[in-house]
């Protein structure tokens, strides 16, 4: 958090000098007046300069977007970041040439970037924000794959009459499977194990 104190003959002058030093605009800062200052007699005797404290407010979303951009660049896969905000959920959509490198095997790298970005966002945010990082509609494709997988394994569970354990997944991927099989009365789903090995089990209803 950048913060400086500046002085000037009037409050306005002090603020302006602070903004010039920080190279920012008034709407992106928080200003506290420490001393209003005094004009004094004829502007000479007993005059006191005004002192203000100016703090730069970090925009969490902007910080996160530039974070993703610089990490992408360092990875050798420069990206463009598009931001969509919906209430407390922020979606960053990455586009670029070597996007496959950023997604990784089963979205490993993308999930890690998402987690790190979420940490960066919430360092600066006042309220807790959820971050989704997506590239080339990966999340949507993964969503479809997971629903298919869920249906197939539900069939298998019914056919064999045995519990089907899936591989460990992050919570939002498990949620997709839970909700995909919610309407199916013949199987039930639950999660087993502890993070990060928590996984779904589909079991037939007896």
């Amino acid at each position, binding site marked *: 958090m950048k913060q400086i104190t500046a002085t000037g003959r009037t409050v306005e002058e002090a603020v302006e000098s602070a903004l010039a030093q920080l190279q920012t605009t008034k709407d992106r800062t928080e200003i506290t007046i420490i001393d209003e200052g005094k004009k004094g007699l004829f502007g000479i005797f007993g005059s006191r300069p005004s002192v203000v404290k100016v703090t730069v407010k970090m925009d969490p979303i902007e*910080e996160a977007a530039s*974070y993703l951009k*610089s*990490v992408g660049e*360092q*990875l*050798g896969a420069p990206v463009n970041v598009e931001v969509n905000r919906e209430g407390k959920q922020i979606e960053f959509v990455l586009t670029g040439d070597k996007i496959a*490198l*950023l997604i*990784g095997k089963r979205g*490993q*790298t993308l*999930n*890690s*970037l998402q*987690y*790190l970005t979420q*940490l*960066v966002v919430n*360092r600066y945010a006042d309220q807790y924000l959820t971050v989704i990082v997506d590239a080339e509609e990966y999340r949507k494709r993964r969503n479809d794959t997971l629903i298919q997988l869920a249906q197939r394994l539900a069939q298998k569970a019914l056919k064999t009459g045995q519990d089907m354990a899936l591989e460990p997944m992050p919570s939002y991927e498990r949620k997709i499977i839970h909700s995909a099989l919610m309407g199916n009365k013949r199987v039930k789903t639950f999660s087993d194990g502890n*993070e*990060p090995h928590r996984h779904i089990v589909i079991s037939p209803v007896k």
Partner: protein
Amino acid sequence: MKDLILTIVKPLVDFPEDIQVNVHEEDQRVTYKLSVSKSDMGKVIGKQGRVAKAIRTVVYAAGSSQQKKIFLEIVE
């Protein structure tokens, strides 16, 4: 690679000036030793090592294009 680690870690900690990355090169492997200020340790490791794991995943993704195997250690 060192820059990548710094880019990832810097925004996560309170004392970015205390970050150090040392490189140990051997025949087939390169080990990056990351050290941060003591009070920032928790921030780069995280609950059950979640942050450390995420940092590693991203760093290893960058290393996949290289011949040598890459390791990231967090040291005090």
